[in-house]
């Protein structure tokens, strides 16, 4: 069951949403987004681009994970209205990325039940990689 507007309070946490990311995930995303950039596909190209560990993941995939986490939380009848984030750190191979979030505001605007959150994508080391915000309608 998805969460309801009444159940949400300031400080309510977004349920954690995780994926281990490697070529299986990156290549699928490269295929649907037609995002065939050498440093996302090849370790040597990743090193040439300055990442010693080799190939690294797409910012757009992390963005998709934030959207997915929000959708899973509010359900099909809810609506993701806005998502913004900054890419601050590299998504390394085999990272377990976890979307986290916390409600900062809830309001009723023009009869719509609106919830605002701070969101982030945390890597295996617990480092935030992608600080951002979101607005959803329930």
């Amino acid at each position, binding site marked *: 069951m998805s969460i309801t507007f009444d159940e949400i309070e300031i400080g309510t946490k977004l349920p954690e949403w995780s994926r281990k990311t490697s070529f299986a995930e990156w290549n699928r995303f490269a295929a649907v987004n037609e995002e065939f950039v050498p440093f996302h596909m090849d370790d040597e190209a990743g090193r040439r681009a300055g990442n010693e560990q080799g190939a*690294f993941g797409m910012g757009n995939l992390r963005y998709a994970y934030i959207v997915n986490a929000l959708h899973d939380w509010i359900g099909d009848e809810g609506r993701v209205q806005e998502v913004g984030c900054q890419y601050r750190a590299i998504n390394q191979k085999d990272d377990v990325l976890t979307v986290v979030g916390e409600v900062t505001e809830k309001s009723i605007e023009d009869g719509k039940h609106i919830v605002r959150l701070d969101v982030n994508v945390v890597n295996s080391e617990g480092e935030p990689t992608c600080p951002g915000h979101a607005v959803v309608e329930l």
Partner: protein
Amino acid sequence: MIGGLPHTKDPATETHKQNNRLFKSTLKSTAYERMSNTKLTYVTDEMLASKGVWGPSRSSYPITDTDIRRWAMATHYPKHPPRIYWDTEYASTTKYQSIIAPPDFNPFAWSLERPAALAPGLAGRRPDGKSLTGMNGGQTDTYGVPMRPGDVISARSRLIGWEEREGRLGHTLYVRTEIEWRNQNDELVKTRISISVRY
């Protein structure tokens, strides 16, 4: 569109020398004079001239349910995506009454026509003629109506502003671009404000 590392070279710098001669011959306050007489700037006259001006529009192929299902499967892998993205019968029982696309779905993937490269100078230029390196500094997307199978999306973009700061990477230009997507009924689908970091 990546996270965190240099990825683009500015094609504009190839025409830099030619443009530089042009700048020197122009009497009013030009990028050349700004960089030679005052402080360092990567802002070009082309940027000043095009600020706020919408570029040409381009259209997607019609979105299919398979496009949507594949996108949702890829972004949820290895788990299954929500049924509203692939189960027609179920989706007809929701308030949307049909399959919808995930908000982040990109209908412009696999177009035969490539988007025009950014016009020379619109991504900034280094006074010494060397290429600027760019990275994706982030984005905010605001969503309108959902995309559905059969939709044709048109996109246009414009430069909306910039600022320059001394950062960890030296002198850095932050360019803000607005991208607008509308469907075949002229309904707003998405507005994206993106930041390109150029140094």
